[in-house]
């Protein structure tokens, strides 16, 4: 059974059609990227999948169950990391916060937080407050928070759009590394074609708004990926050219 199945999903804001008709499935352990032009309805699609926004049409199934409201084993990493962290809590407190309503013991919570902070390389910053961290570090905190929550499915909405190029490359590699260690299924939305090819097992290309899936491409790049060799490889260049052509169309 697919981890996530989206069938005929559509959303209309008042009279604005944002997502027209989107269907796809994500298998357990997969990392799927959704790439589409700016304003094509990517965030809307993700919010419908997360249960934050009731879809106007169509259905979302997680583990075969129809999603209505936010499912319990799903986490979202938002683009605006600084606005999604609690400024009055430390890094540790932020990562631990969502675990408090999950019936875990203090010891269990602590070990999960420490594990997640180690994954993202922030063990040393546990006692700091968000405002003491760089943008990239803040986004790592919000990734750690999602990881500690141990969701079956992690949704990411342009998670690296607001950081500089070097930090962005580091965070991409971090996601690739951590999703293997944590054995997580990831659905990541981006408008960056190169990023989608570099990260994904599969890329879904969206049309301009109202969104539909134009094409699904399997990414057959060797693992582990490397910022320099992977991006320079022939298949990488071929894929990104193909996606660019699809989006331009």
């Amino acid at each position, binding site marked *: 059974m697919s981890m996530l199945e989206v069938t005929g999903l559509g959303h209309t804001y008042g009279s604005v059609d944002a997502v027209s008709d989107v269907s796809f499935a994500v298998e357990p352990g997969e990392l799927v990227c959704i790439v589409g032009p700016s304003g094509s309805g990517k965030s809307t699609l993700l*919010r419908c999948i997360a249960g*934050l926004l009731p879809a106007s049409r169509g259905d979302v199934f997680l583990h075969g169950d129809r999603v209505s409201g*936010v499912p319990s084993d799903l*986490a979202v990493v938002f683009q605006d990391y600084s606005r999604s962290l*609690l400024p*009055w809590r430390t890094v540790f407190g932020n990562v631990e*916060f969502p675990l408090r*309503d999950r019936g875990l013991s203090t010891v269990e919570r602590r070990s999960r937080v420490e594990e997640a902070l180690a994954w993202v390389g922030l063990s040393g910053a546990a006692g700091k*407050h968000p405002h003491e961290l760089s943008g990239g570090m803040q986004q790592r905190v919000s990734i750690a928070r999602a990881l500690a*929550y141990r969701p079956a499915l992690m949704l990411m909405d342009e998670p690296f759009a607001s950081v500089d190029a070097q930090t962005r490359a580091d965070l991409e590699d971090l996601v690739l590394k951590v999703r293997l260690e944590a054995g997580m299924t990831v659905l990541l939305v981006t408008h960056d074609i190169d990023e989608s090819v570099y990260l994904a097992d599969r890329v879904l290309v969206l049309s301009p708004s109202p969104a539909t899936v134009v094409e699904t491409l399997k990414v057959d790049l060797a693992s582990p990926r490397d910022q320099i060799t992977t991006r320079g490889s022939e298949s990488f260049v071929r894929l990104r050219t193909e996606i660019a052509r699809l989006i331009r169309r």
Partner: protein
Amino acid sequence: MNAWIRAGVLFCALLVWQWVTVEVGNPYFPPPLRVAEAAVRLWPSHHFAADVLPSLLRVLGGWAAASVLGIVIGVLLGRSRAAADYFEFVFTFLRTLPPPLLVPVFMLIFGISTEMEVATIVFGSVWPVLLNSVDGARSVDPVMADTARVFRLSRARWLFGVVLPAAGPKIFAGLRVSLSIALILMVIAEVVGATSGIGYQLGTAQGASDLPGMWSWIALISLLGYLLNRGLLAVEHRALVWSRP
């Protein structure tokens, strides 16, 4: 260093005040030394237990009740569209009433009593903290609200762990305004309708044309206001460390 300069400025001001009032010799404006004499005579005697303490308890009690009411109602209105739609206009109307107007009303209802005074203080000082709580609760970032929903925070954790801290700076600003209003209303209510308290003693001194005594009570009220505000600022400073990067 700054503290020394401030103390120096205060001392000079008192000196000038002393000199001017002695020179002018107007009986309505006694020199500070005579006010101090009256303070030494009046404050520490039986008045402390009979007047100062009760006034302090009433103002703090009324203000505390107003704060709890204001924060609870304000956060509710701020986070619930329906509640705001139905009730916000009522509060917008009520807060335009000048609070001292309520003294005669509450005097009719409660008579000359502590209840009258506390009711006046509560009703008059609830507005700043209530309206600021509404504002503060509304200011929770939508991304934060989405995050809370994604992680399926319980209602209590959402309210106490996210909304209240996020509204904290606004709420404290409201608390400070409310506190100064509470103090003003305490004095007004006691001058007009009480049988004890700082305001009552102020009225009594006035009736007896004891001008230095009157000024000593006025000085005590401003001293209390200053100390209460300093105390609240200290609490605020500790509670909101995070908001000052």
